[in-house]
């Protein structure tokens, strides 16, 4: 050993004496060392991954064959759980979670029960109190598959939490059916862009009807107009009776965003009152409210809307004309008759063009339907 060191010293000595050589040597050595560390880290990681893979494989061999029976049959569940308890919780959790993500309906509920009975959800419940929102989001996402009302989940949404944390919290609250929690959370929502409405919309759709109806009580107190619009639209679909009482208020709201919500909701509620509201909103000063009202009248399916929609074909905004034309087409023969009339005799060229385009669309649809095998 000593001769080797002295040989190195003898070789490096002259190099070390020169400042430039010394600097370059130190840099090269440091880089080389880092490369070795990285290689060691990679080797260790691959080794650990292989060990984990083998353990997962062994677990699947030992507990996999009885797993499906344990999910189906509560009597066999206890023996499966006692067998699973001998393995690392991570292995069991990832095994069940793999199935959970690919399952729907009652089978998923049974899997969630198994997950809970193995006590795998408790760690995530503890994580909900974390100060770091990424940790909370991770826990909420996992719990959104397995949580139950009796877990007494308390969510901490902080003012600086991003939108994704609020959505994750809403999904979890939708699962455990906590109306007060949903109301409180919705009051903190700010939706800044259209595409961000999708997670809100789909989560509200998944709320139990009772919770949605209870949430609707606080509709007029929600600060964000987009949230109010989405809630009203979802409520019209899921709890129409509870929604009716807000319709007139929404249609008169000074915020056009809310009036758009009234249009969507009224289009889904096939009542005389909603029809009247839509006719009124067809004369709204905001063009996008008029466009929505025209569209909703088509969905409403009331043939007496033909006159109002025919009049809307002369709207100065193209979107309103287009929606009115499409709605007239959807209203069947009466609507088509009006479109043909406008295409033939209207003095307004833009209305004529829109009516002709829609008639062309109708012919194309008919042709395509004929082509479809």
């Amino acid at each position, binding site marked *: 050993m000593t001769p080797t060191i002295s040989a190195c010293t003898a070789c490096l000595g002259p*190099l070390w004496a020169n400042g*430039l*050589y010394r600097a*370059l*040597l130190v*840099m*090269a050595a440091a*880089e*080389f060392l*880092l*490369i070795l560390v*990285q*290689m060691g*880290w*990679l080797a260790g*990681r*691959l080794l650990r*991954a*292989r060990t984990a893979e083998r353990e997962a494989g062994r677990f699947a061999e030992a507990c996999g064959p009885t797993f499906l029976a344990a999910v189906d049959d509560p009597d066999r569940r206890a023996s499966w759980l006692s067998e699973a308890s001998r393995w690392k919780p991570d292995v069991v959790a*990832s095994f069940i979670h*793999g199935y959970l*993500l690919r399952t*729907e309906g009652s089978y998923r509920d049974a899997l969630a029960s198994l997950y809970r009975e193995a006590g795998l959800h408790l760690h995530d419940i503890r994580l909900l109190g974390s100060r770091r929102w*990424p*940790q909370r*989001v*991770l826990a909420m*996402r*996992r719990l*959104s*598959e397995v949580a139950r009302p009796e877990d007494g989940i308390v969510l901490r949404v902080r003012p600086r939490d*991003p*939108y*994704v944390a609020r*959505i994750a919290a809403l*999904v979890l609250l939708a699962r455990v059916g906590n109306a007060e929690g949903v109301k409180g959370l919705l009051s903190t929502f*700010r939706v*800044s*862009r*259209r*595409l*961000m*409405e*999708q*997670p809100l*919309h*789909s*989560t509200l*759709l*998944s709320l139990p009807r009772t919770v949605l109806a209870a949430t609707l009580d606080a509709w007029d107190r929600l600060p964000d107009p987009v949230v109010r619009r989405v809630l009203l639209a979802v409520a019209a679909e899921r709890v129409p009776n509870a929604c009716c009482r807000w319709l007139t208020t929404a249609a008169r709201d000074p915020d056009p965003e809310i009036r758009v919500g009234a249009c969507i909701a009224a289009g889904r509620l096939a009542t005389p009152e909603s029809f009247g509201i839509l006719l009124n909103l067809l004369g709204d000063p905001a063009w996008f409210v008029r466009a929505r009202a025209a569209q909703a009248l088509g969905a409403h399916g009331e043939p007496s809307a033909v006159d109002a929609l025919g009049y809307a074909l002369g709207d100065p905004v193209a979107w309103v004309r287009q929606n009115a034309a499409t709605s007239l087409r959807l209203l069947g023969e009466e609507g088509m008759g009006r479109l043909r009339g406008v295409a033939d005799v209207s003095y307004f060229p833009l209305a004529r063009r829109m009516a002709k385009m829609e008639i062309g669309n109708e012919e*194309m649809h008919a042709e*395509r339907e004929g*082509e*479809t*095998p």
Partner: protein
Amino acid sequence: MIHAVDFVFFLFFLAVNLLYLCLTVFAVLDIRARRFLRMVEYDARVLSDRSTPPITLVAPAFNEEVVIVESVTSFLQLEYPTLRVIVVNDGSRDATLARLLEAFDCRPTSYFLCSDIPTQPLREIYRSSRDPRLWVIDKANGGKADALNAGLNACQTPLVCCVDADTLVDRKAFLRMVEPFLYDDRNVIAVGGSVCVANGSTVRHGRLRLLSLPARWIGRFQLVEYLRSFLLGRVGYNRMGGNLIVSGAFGLFHRDAVVEVGGYRTDTVGEDMDLVVRLHRQFKGSGRRYSVIHLPDPVCYTEVPEQLSVLADQRDRWQRGLAQVLLRNRGMLGNPRFGLVGVLIVPVFFLFELMGPLVELTGYGVFILQYVFGLVDFVVVALFFAVSLFAGLLFSFQSVLIDELNARWSPGDRPPIRDPARYRFGLLATALLENFGYRQFTLLARMRGLWHFARGVRSWGEMTRAGFQGRSS
């Protein structure tokens, strides 16, 4: 004088390595954060909900008869509820259109097209009777950008995905790429994903089933390069102010934003970078809040060239594209009006990406000349060579390690690797060997690109492909 020149090169070397060090740290932080934002638990919800924002996938195709059917098959297999696929045949001279029409039983149909962006005239529009989500637009040749613009005109959805027709897209790519648009409140206007090398891997029925190292070294070298570029570079730039490139191979955009800047420019060979730079220019210039994000997730797989001449042409084109874009947007260089993009990212691209080959090759030349004329001793040359080699190796190794980390943090999202240990250590060996010949070859190709740019060459060059089917095991 000589010491001053040496000092400049050494300073450049230090700056490059410092940049890579920052990018490494930022990339690890970003990949770690992405772990929390990959909402796999909500996939079923997104897939089953009718309010999920629809996406139009636009694939321009020019002489792609070898891969077109397989690629379109893979596009139609993507897991997304509201997807429309528009293939734009850009006046191909081979059987691209015939193969498409035959394989998907496409028939002429009428279609409403906006004329937001002017394009070459359209010849015919077809719709598949086998899968009504597929539309084929046949148009006169006008280049890739023109074909993309035709697709943008036909797109009626808020999100549009521009993809190369020779790309195999991961089945869950859209589920991952749409997440920033749905959950991120920073007003995301464009999202890019990591492009991986498909050479050597097993492809079946339009899906990549098993990931393997490319059989030829030239493919492996490019695999390491892609890892370094996507996982270290672009992911790192997320935290340095934003990316200047969303790969033309696969990128998801807000249609309105793309139309607002006039779509793709047809007079450039770097149309993907040009678009993103103009998006930055438009949004930063008008003081609007926005972000362009690169995801570390592997979203698509592409076949890389395995012939040196084709590879050289490709790098030549990329360098010309870069030069064109930076020259056109020189007003952004160091301009604080464009925030970090102007002050940091554009100068970094100018200095290290555009001028990098010039400085590096000049450095080699100067060192050799100094050594020949006895102005510098052998020990310094050898030590500096070791330092630069190790530095390059270090960052290449880091990209392999980051890929490993990313794979562990996104389990189930990627195809399995055939013999992971052999794959990873094979990549490390490739990272070592690329410094002896391959790196210098690409530097020369990029220098040729700069030379061609100076001479006003605008051609694309030819890309020959073996096709994914030909590679399937």
